[in-house]
């Protein structure tokens, strides 16, 4: 697999050093009937500019893992380091795109993004802040909807606002928690392509949770597959070797695509089949 290095590693040697390090992270919740182990010794390092997807059945603790990167949750043992610094609480350097958008319904699209910009860059002038808000909304194609309230726009547009808000504050890592899970198939594909275009342009480090194998194969450099909880671990990591910039049609015709897809399916549905009880 290492023969097919991604373009980042070829062009920028400095990015080889780990940027985000998840080091022996476990999460244990004490209960009356004994400890409930959600995550058991997770090790993962992500390079700067890398696009990583995490996949696993519901209840496997992938959201818990993501919450430890965003800082909403803390590990029971082990630590999460960004640029060598331990993550202890949420902050704008690890901006989250939530599954349910988390836009403020009483603010317009513009005001939602502006709140983030003015909070993170208070030293910038009004004109500079305005420029940042407008350019980021332009990037996700929302020039027309700038004065609309979240209640007046579609789910896809809401998630675009959420992505614009996240990118507008220039986070070091972008965290996406099943961002397209609530969207219809067509909107979902559109947004995946837009996200990929934006990523190509900015080469921001991305960590994304998904349920969708095809989405992960199209987007990411590495696919982290988690075993079932309790005591979830990283089961396997797939390198996704397709050339960038990616084109969906080309990727899907690649013979390696079927192979990787089967590998992921086999992992999720045979080796770690999810049994509803």
């Amino acid at each position, binding site marked *: 697999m290492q023969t097919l290095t991604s373009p980042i590693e070829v062009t920028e040697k400095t990015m080889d050093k780990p940027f985000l390090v998840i080091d022996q992270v476990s999460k244990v919740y004490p209960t009356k009937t004994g400890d409930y182990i959600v995550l058991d010794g997770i090790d993962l390092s992500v390079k700067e500019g890398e696009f990583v997807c995490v996949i696993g059945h519901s209840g496997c603790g992938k959201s818990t893992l993501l919450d430890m990167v*965003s*800082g*909403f949750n803390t590990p029971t043992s082990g630590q999460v380091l960004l640029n060598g610094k331990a993550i202890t*609480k*949420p*902050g*704008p350097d*690890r*901006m*989250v795109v*939530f599954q*349910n958008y*988390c836009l*403020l*319904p*009483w*603010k317009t699209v513009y005001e939602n993004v502006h*709140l*983030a910009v*003015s*909070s*993170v860059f208070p030293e910038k002038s009004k004109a500079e802040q305005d420029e940042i808000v407008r350019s980021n909304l332009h990037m996700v194609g929302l020039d027309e909807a700038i004065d609309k*309230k979240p*209640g007046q726009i579609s789910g896809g547009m809401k998630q675009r606002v959420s992505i614009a808000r996240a990118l507008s*504050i220039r986070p070091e890592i972008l965290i996406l928690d099943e961002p397209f899970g609530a969207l219809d198939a067509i909107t979902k594909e559109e947004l995946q392509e837009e996200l990929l275009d934006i990523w190509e342009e900015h080469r921001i480090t991305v960590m994304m949770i998904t349920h969708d194998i095809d989405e992960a194969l199209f987007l990411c450099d590495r696919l982290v597959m988690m075993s079932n909880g309790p005591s979830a671990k990283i089961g396997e990591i797939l390198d996704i070797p397709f050339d960038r910039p990616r084109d969906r049609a080309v990727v899907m015709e690649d013979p390696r695509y079927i192979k990787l897809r089967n590998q992921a399916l086999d992992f999720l549905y045979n080796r770690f089949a999810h049994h509803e009880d």
Partner: protein
Amino acid sequence: MTTAPARPASPTAEKAIEIFQSLIPPVICSSATLLLWQLLCSGADSKMPGPIKVVSQTVGTITGGFSETGIWMQLLNSLTRVGIGYVAAAILGIAIGVTIGVNKFLRDGFDPLIQILRTVPPLAWLPISTILFLQTPKPAENAGIFLIFITAIWPIIINTAVGVQQIPKDYTNVAKVLKLSGKDFLLSILIPSTVPYIFTGLRIGIGLAWLAIVAAEMLSTGAGGIGAYIWNEYTSMLDDSISKIILAVFSVGLVGLVLDRIVGWLGSLVVAE
């Protein structure tokens, strides 16, 4: 609903018909009530005047109501008191509600006290508030205002505090990840998401305040207001007193309804999203 699709009425005409139709049941039922009242009180030895007698005896009261001791001026007196006491209760109630809503220690600490005080009937405060303001220039007036304040503030505090605790996690997560300043959090997240709860409290508060003022004015001497007006008519008991009392009672109800609707309407303006 049963109109033929062949001739659709214009939107305004449809609206007019709708309003007209919605008026039919209240008109019929109110008329029936008036009729029954008239029949029950039409006996020669009836102590209660019927509706016709009430109207004929109060025409002068209605038209002359704007003199200094007239019914409308007294109603205005009461409204002014409620206005001052209620606005003070709203400002302080929201401030206290937000404070105990965000601070668990204060919330747990003050909860028992608030739970006890909120169940105190308004009139039970009257002796205390009278004594409290005995030395002020207008003791009865100020005692009334304080009574309104102390009656209306509890539902406002409680509902505001509940609203603050009910802020959806979605919004607090945004605040956390953006590290919003206290001011930004208050203005952009806390207040907007708490407003519906605040208005629930304000609406309960205005109802209680209006209930309290009439009773308080009946009991305290020299305060004036619509409550005193009713009480004066009751004690003098002239030929037309009962009619005047009925008019006053009806007006109190009407004003109470209008106050409730105004607060509700303000709420719908602010909350409309």
